């Protein structure tokens, strides 16, 4: 919860920054050493407090940079970087596949049908081909008949095999999940009656949410041959995009 060294360094930060920075000693400034004047440690020479060399021991954490299309720092809600928008991705590095994944992938691809746990705005939906999906929001800038690709999935599976992404999502080049926008529906008008005590007045709150209706066209796990054809690189170590698991 609380970075003690960070704070201790700041408390001990003397006014003369320049001299402290130039000294390249690896003394870790400690809160007790900086504040208490009575104790003198053996490793420290007898010197006035301000003159003790204090070097920057911890490096500040680099903050992530979200660059918008205009290459500026996002200021308002309108500045959404490209990777947070629903646009087709561009890849600069080829897909890394481990040897074990290549060996186990035919088990999964040969067993039909498949299911996918696709994440839309971080909400999971378990889908199979032909399902109807009712999203709890009105999807912007689409109309009925459009074909969408889902590109965030945590789990791909068949009856006996599962491809899991682990902590992050599966690489979107491992599978194809297409859905079609069927239209927009709404729920029947809901009226909630609200009352206050000792008041003969009933407030009626209405709501009528609108939904996007989608139809899953296909859920396909790409085979090992297809992956290699598309330029996947085989890596020995385990830092590949996913791991296949045998179920029971």
């Amino acid at each position, binding site marked *: 919860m609380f970075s003690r060294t*960070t704070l201790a360094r700041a408390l001990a930060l003397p006014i003369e920054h320049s001299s402290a920075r130039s000294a390249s000693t690896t003394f870790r400034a400690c809160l007790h050493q900086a504040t208490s004047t009575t104790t003198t440690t053996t490793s420290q020479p007898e010197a006035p407090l301000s003159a003790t060399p204090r070097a920057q021991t*911890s490096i*500040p954490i680099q903050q992530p940079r979200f660059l918008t299309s205009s290459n500026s*720092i996002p200021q308002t809600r309108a500045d959404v970087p490209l990777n*947070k928008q629903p646009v087709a991705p561009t890849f600069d590095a080829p897909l890394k596949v481990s040897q074990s994944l290549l060996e186990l992938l035919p088990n999964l691809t040969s067993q039909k049908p498949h299911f996918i746990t696709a994440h839309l705005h971080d909400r999971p939906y378990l889908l199979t081909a032909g399902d109807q999906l009712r999203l709890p929001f009105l999807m912007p800038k689409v109309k009925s008949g459009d074909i969408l690709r889902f*590109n965030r999935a945590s789990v791909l599976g068949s009856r006996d095999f599962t491809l899991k992404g682990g902590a992050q999502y599966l690489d979107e080049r491992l599978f194809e999940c297409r859905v079609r926008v069927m239209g927009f529906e709404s729920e029947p008008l809901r009226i909630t009656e609200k009352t206050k005590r000792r008041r003969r007045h009933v407030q009626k709150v209405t709501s009528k949410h609108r939904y996007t209706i989608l139809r899953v066209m296909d859920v396909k796990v790409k085979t090992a041959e297809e992956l290699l054809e598309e330029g996947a690189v085989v890596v020995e170590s385990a830092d590949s995009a996913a791991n296949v698991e045998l179920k029971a």
Partner: protein
Amino acid sequence: MSSYFRITLMRSAIGLPRRTHDVLKALGLKKRMATVFHPVSPSVAGNIMKVKELVEVQEVDRRLTKQEVHLERKPDPGYYVEKRAGTELRECRRA
């Protein structure tokens, strides 16, 4: 190189002494999960020390705007439009 404290209020000061409330107010933390940035200095560090049980502190290299802090939490949409409605029909006609 200047660095900043990134302070996030994790626990509310409700029920704590007035002094604790005042320290949070001085830091600019009004509600839980609010994030503020302050340059690394002894006075700010002292303030943090007063409320160290309530906040989470990181040392970072620059200030983030409010929108950038929001974007860190914003999830990916998870979809994109592959084909528009009319294009399929037009491809069929051409073929």
